[in-house]
């Protein structure tokens, strides 16, 4: 099953954030709760956790790109 990693609402007045760094590469195994991607709002840097265990199937928004709140950043394929 594909589980999307979604850019969360990081604050009421935050509309978008930048992908700083993917901590996993496509094809890497990830555990639920493990940090997979670092994002930055105008004010803070945050680490987003994997919503499920599985394999990072694809990265939709690469590092240094900006993503709107609600955007799918990547897909985790569960077993």
């Amino acid at each position, binding site marked *: 099953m594909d589980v999307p990693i979604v850019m969360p609402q990081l604050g009421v007045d935050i*509309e*978008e*954030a*930048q992908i*700083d*760094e993917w901590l996993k590469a496509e094809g890497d195994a990830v555990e639920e709760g493990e940090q997979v991607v*670092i994002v*930055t*709002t*105008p*004010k*803070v*840097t945050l680490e987003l956790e994997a919503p499920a265990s599985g394999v990072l199937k694809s990265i939709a928004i690469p*590092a*240094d790109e*900006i993503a709107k709140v609600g955007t799918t950043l990547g897909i985790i394929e569960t077993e």
Partner: protein
Amino acid sequence: MPKELFVDPQVMRKADRLRVPEIPVHAYATPLAEERQRYGDKTLIRVLRDMMMVREFETMLASFKAQGAYAGIEFVYKGPAHLSIGQEGAAVGSALALKPDDHIFGSHRSHGEFIAKGLSAIAGLEPAALAAIMEGHQGGAMLRSVEKILGGDNETEVAETFLLLGLLAEIFMRASGFNGGMGGSMHAFFLPFGAYPNNAIVGGSAGIATGAAMRKRLGGDGGITVAYSGDGSTGCGPVWEAMNFSSMAQLKGLWPEEHRGGLPVLFCFNNNFYAMGGQTIGETAGWDRLSRIGAGINPDAMHAETVDGTNPLAVADAVARKRALLVEGAGPALLDVECYRATGHSTSDANAYRSRDEIKAWTAHDPIALYAASLKEAGILDDTVEAALAEGVAARVRMVTAAAVDPAIAAPVDIRANPTLIGELMFSNTAIALPPEPVGTFNDPASTSRVRQLAKKARHGIDENGGLHSPMRAVTIRDALFETLLHHFTHDESLIGYGEECREWGGAFGVYRGLSDILPYDRLFNAPISEAAIVATAIGYAMEGGRAVVELMYTDFIGRAGDEIFNQMAKWQSMSAGMLKLPVVLRCSIGSKYGAQHSQDWSGLVAHIPGLKVVYPSTPYDAKGLLASALAGNDPVIFFESQRLYDATEMFHEGGVPEDYYQVPIGVPDVKREGTDVTILTLGPSLYAAVGAAETLAAEHGVSAEIIDARSLVPFDYETVLKSVRKTGRILLVSEASERGSFLMTLAADIGRYAHGDLTAPPQVLGSPNWIVPGAEMESTYFPQAQDIIDIVCCELIPEKNTDYRGLRGWDGLDLSRRGI
């Protein structure tokens, strides 16, 4: 809050028992025979002579205060005299253990500390160095005077007389005093002898000496600093803040190895048992023995000891041992030097709080008499030599006094000849030039996501379709400040920065974000929540030759650093007659949303205090350039930033925010929108309310508004504003500070004074009302809005528009004032 510091519940929750080190009390027991080996008889006799010198000097001042005369010299001395008679053993003993490059920061009772340190430095300096120092002071003028009155050229005598005359001329506030007459009794200092500023504020030296010690550690200057203060200062919060700051665990753990170690500062409490009218032991303190407080600071208990200040050799022994610890990096250290004050707090003290019996009992413990007796007993001194010493000291002090009251030698400061003389000393208006290439050790900025992100951002806030870029896609004020900070940190090795959340957090509002990946701990660090220590240490760091940019998270916290900002940061350049430079930038954010204690614009409060440059930019272009001017300049600057504007992008400056480094001069307002009918002068975020108002005024009322952003408060060049008023004839001033006593009122009064012929209506002021800042939901009813601006323009400035107040501010100002609101 580095992540490698793991708060381990297994450790923190384990039952344990703290062990406090033993704190020695009067443990000194070295036989005099050993001290003879250590110092030699000549030095032991000099110690006696130096104590006599301090006492005679203080006696002279007491005599002037009480009788208007000393040794046949009549003189009216109007200034204060906080004398240290009875405390000579403490001053001379500690100075004996200090080297010329150790720097003391005195108390308000500092004449003895100053004289003792000066005499010690003179004994320790090479003749050539002494000559150069004296020649370098005021172009050698004081040295010439001394040579003339002495009629001899014995190097030591010349230097000692120079020391005493420079001090006394300063106490008498003469132009030839060590600080040009701008310091006086409680602020006299002379850097080349290691006597750094004394402080009239009790405990004021603690934080400053701590910052100076930090500079000694980072600048590699060697030596230690000493913070002198009295026992009463243990009741002062900033003293505790300084002690905590000097022993922060990161100094011994997280800082780079070459700079690791507790700060080399000795907190030397000259404990005379009285704190003004209160008695520390038994009445106003609970420590019983002052040295006990060391146990509250760190596991070493600050190596604290109680020492017998009656015996100069006991003090010297303790200071020498503490000095060795400090140099090793085991600091800080604390000494409780008990030394009974024989005379009053000042000459106006009637000693109503202590018994004659007590004073009499202590006369049997007089440091000079006891020490002289011990030297005689050991065969080092006899009556003849003692009498000769006393005679020599009296003759010297009389000679110096005669010179200090002689206007031909020590001329009074001539204000009439130059009415703005003191004003000219407030700011040096000088700046450093940064090298073109980066200097220092730091990680490549390009490796951080912040810098990569910035490289992709638009430099202007308006996109190609005329819309606004989001703050993720264009340079904001937050980014603009970061760019200047990064440039200065990478081009000025002497610059350090700190605040309560500067590293991993990136600053509470993200200005520093990314900097902790670039800069090591000794350039950027998290400070304790100690606003007083943050500001005081920055001042000390700057006095010792460094440069600092420090942060108070909220302007509302200025109260916690009140003395440090108002009395220290603002005063030392002029109290030193311009000899000291204080390149300190204090960033303060002005808040929002959090209500009464987190949202106040206090820019007017600091602008009121002479001696501070004050800046409050509202656009990214101005923020970047003004911060550059502040950081490059050598004057103290309070740099305000609005939390609501950190995300603001550049809407005014053509071409947006330049990528390269540039400076915007402090003190020059900027026209943000041209107009012909009315001038709106704004300070802070009100600029944006004014822009909204101007658009409505043009579209709905046919009024053309010219908008000027003040950008700075001090200095302030009125020319741009006066030029505008000559065109429009009307002016409204807008800011978010509450109106009463605000900076707008000063501007409005001045504009009324300088432009009255050009005005068709009195200047109008629109600030926030004189009540607390409400929480987020009510803020729009509190801070001036566009509609409030339109109301005043149409109802008060251009009454022919004949409109009514549509906003909330149609209230009766006179009635509110009558009721204090």
